[in-house]
């Protein structure tokens, strides 16, 4: 890997570290970098569920009513609706109820080690954004939001929604669009969601490590694979960090809408490569929820580029992902 002039902007947005890098001198790159950074702050302001005054939470407070949203929030809702249809309900933003009842109703400091929260809420306990009496088991019935693209109007339906994952995917997509205007290689990183442009700093592609989701022993590398990407995006859904103790058991943030609980389908992580960052985010989550037994067939049916790590450490990869893998860990599962 050769040394090449790059310009980097780092910011904190969407409760994660965001890094924007372009292979270009700072003075030429600065305007595009600033516009790309602004996409994150703008989408965060519109789509956060940790601010009760955000446009999303205002709509969540009365999901059956019609709301006019800022363009960023409307786009996120529309993208979530598209993802719900594409994944046949595996990606369902209505799992917000379950997340809140498991105690993930505020930003949790997973970086500090083990996290424990109060026991899950009962259905009658009032919580901002969650209607009293809402079901805490499988999300009932199909989701049928009403969207008015001309006026950015929405009626969410019977349940509040979470736009966390898809909001980050959208921000990565928009930031990548801004940086692409420079016509030079670039990299957008946001909490495991990535988009790369061009062939990397040295013209041989961007090398992206896939983190090992299992506790790492001293003799093992922290990566399970390295991918070489150009003009592509990738995202990983993993339970390595974002898990916590609730009511005496370990839970995590990847909620299976079919069960209304943390997904337990034999997988620890799923990484997806796609041309679009939001699509990579959606499919990494949907394939994780789909589980070990069916992930291979789903990838074949849709020609998805995915790499997954099972509970026992075994690594699997779809045929479409194989072309991206330039290194994989030799350690036994």
């Amino acid at each position, binding site marked *: 890997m050769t040394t090449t002039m790059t310009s980097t902007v780092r910011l904190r947005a*969407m409760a994660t570290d965001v890094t924007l890098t372009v292979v270009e001198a700072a003075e030429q790159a600065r305007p595009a970098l600033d516009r790309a950074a602004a996409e994150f702050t703008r989408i965060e302001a519109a789509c956060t569920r940790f601010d009760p005054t955000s446009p999303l939470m205002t709509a969540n407070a009365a999901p059956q009513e019609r709301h006019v949203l800022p363009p960023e929030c409307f786009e996120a809702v529309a993208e979530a609706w598209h993802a719900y249809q594409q994944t046949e309900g595996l990606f369902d933003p209505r799992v917000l109820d379950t997340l809140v009842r498991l105690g993930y109703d505020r930003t949790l400091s997973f970086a500090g080690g083990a996290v424990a929260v109060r026991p899950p809420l009962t259905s009658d306990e009032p919580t901002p954004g969650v209607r009293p009496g809402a079901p805490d088991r499988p999300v009932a019935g199909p989701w049928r939001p009403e969207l008015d693209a001309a006026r950015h109007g929405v009626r969410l339906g019977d349940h509040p929604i979470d736009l966390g994952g898809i*909001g980050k995917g959208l921000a990565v997509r928009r930031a990548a669009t801004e940086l692409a205007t420079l016509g030079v290689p670039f990299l957008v990183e*946001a909490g495991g969601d990535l988009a790369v442009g061009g062939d990397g700093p040295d013209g041989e592609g961007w090398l992206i*490590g896939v983190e090992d989701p299992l506790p790492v022993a001293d003799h093992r590398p922290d990566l399970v694979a390295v991918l070489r990407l150009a003009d592509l995006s990738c995202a990983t859904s993993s339970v390595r960090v974002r898990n916590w103790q609730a009511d005496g058991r370990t839970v995590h943030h990847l909620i299976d809408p079919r069960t209304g609980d943390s997904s337990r389908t034999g997988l620890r*992580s799923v990484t997806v490569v796609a041309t679009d960052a939001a699509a990579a985010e959606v499919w990494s989550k949907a394939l994780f929820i789909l589980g070990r037994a069916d992930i291979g067939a789903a990838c074949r049916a849709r*020609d998805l580029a995915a790499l997954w790590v099972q509970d026992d450490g075994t690594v699997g990869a779809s*045929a479409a992902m194989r072309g991206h893998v330039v290194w994989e860990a030799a350690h036994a599962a």
Partner: protein
Amino acid sequence: MTDRTRTAGWTAAAVLGPVAAAVFAGTTAWSAAHVPAPPTTDATSIAGPVAAGGDPQQIIDDTARIADLERVVASLRAQAASLAPTRAGTRADAGPTKAAAAATPSVRAARPPSVSHPAARPPAVHAVTGASSATKGKP
């Protein structure tokens, strides 16, 4: 075999025998009237056995060519072996059909199929995708 079938068998032999002889004679006559084609330079022609008593220079050239092709074959076999999974626990799914690939162009390889190498340490990377880089949750 009954008498009827035995009679039918002799009848068939009586008919097919002259036909086969005629075909053989015709083939022999055609061969005698045609000059063999000159040697070609493609792989299939030179990979065949070399006639004893042939041109010594031709034999040397053909032998060298065979050696070159054997090296090519060995190289291709090595590439094929390196494309196979390098880890016992890793499994690859069957490749997509051409129709499926054409139907979903949104996912594509960044470069020609790359080769996994079982090096103990990973190469230096530009970024990492995973959970640890998202330590404080999503919005």
